[in-house]
């Protein structure tokens, strides 16, 4: 099985990257790809509960991530420092995630070999 990390590092709104990362995950998951999704820096905001971006003409992105289990995507990793720096905890997030420090994320990147950064 092919393995790839999709890494989200940007804020969910204000640019298209998070929405496209989400679309990429769905788009390649159907081709027998083992996917690990990592949220770092402002990327952690993508998982916040109760997003309400309608006034920006954007659809809420957070609600989509729990759905990815239906596409056999179930490995979600959040960079612990990025979360705590923003005053957030896992209780603020829409789904259960694994917390990882920078070294553990480095190991994941080594293990998966290929990374799609958004």
């Amino acid at each position, binding site marked *: 099985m*092919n393995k*790839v990390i999709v890494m989200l590092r940007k804020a969910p709104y204000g640019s298209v990257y998070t929405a496209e990362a989400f679309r990429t995950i769905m788009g390649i998951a159907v081709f027998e790809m083992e996917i690990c999704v990592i949220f770092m820096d402002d990327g952690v905001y993508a998982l916040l509960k109760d997003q309400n971006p309608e006034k920006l003409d954007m659809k809420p992105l957070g609600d989509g991530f729990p759905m990815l289990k239906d596409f056999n995507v179930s490995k979600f990793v959040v960079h612990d420092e990025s979360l705590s720096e923003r005053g957030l905890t896992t209780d603020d997030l829409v789904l259960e995630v694994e917390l990882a420090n920078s070294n553990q994320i480095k190991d994941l990147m080594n293990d998966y070999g*290929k990374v*799609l950064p958004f």
Partner: protein
Amino acid sequence: MKIGVMILEGPYQHQAVDSAYLFIKAAIARGHEIAGIFLYTDGVNNINKFINPPGERNISKRLSELGESGIDIVACTACSKFRGMRPDLAVEHVRQSGLGSLAEFLRAADRFLTFGD
């Protein structure tokens, strides 16, 4: 080694596509093979055949030449629709297709590089 490439930014605003082009030329010169180039988000604008920069590098022509040399260059169909990049606006030796091509390039490649902002 087989190398896959994804480009996320359009022409001239960001360096991404230029870096990708120079990287690919250097990789080929070193004997590596390119598994494919996937143009995603604004990257689909890099193959507009009407790009015409007076006295400067022509990005779409450069990509077309890479395509002519046998590299599979795919622009995301959905991203192209969002940006009005109709297939008849594209240079020769490139094609439009979906994320399946990205999956295919990922599978074929030993290493995969993304050029973005």
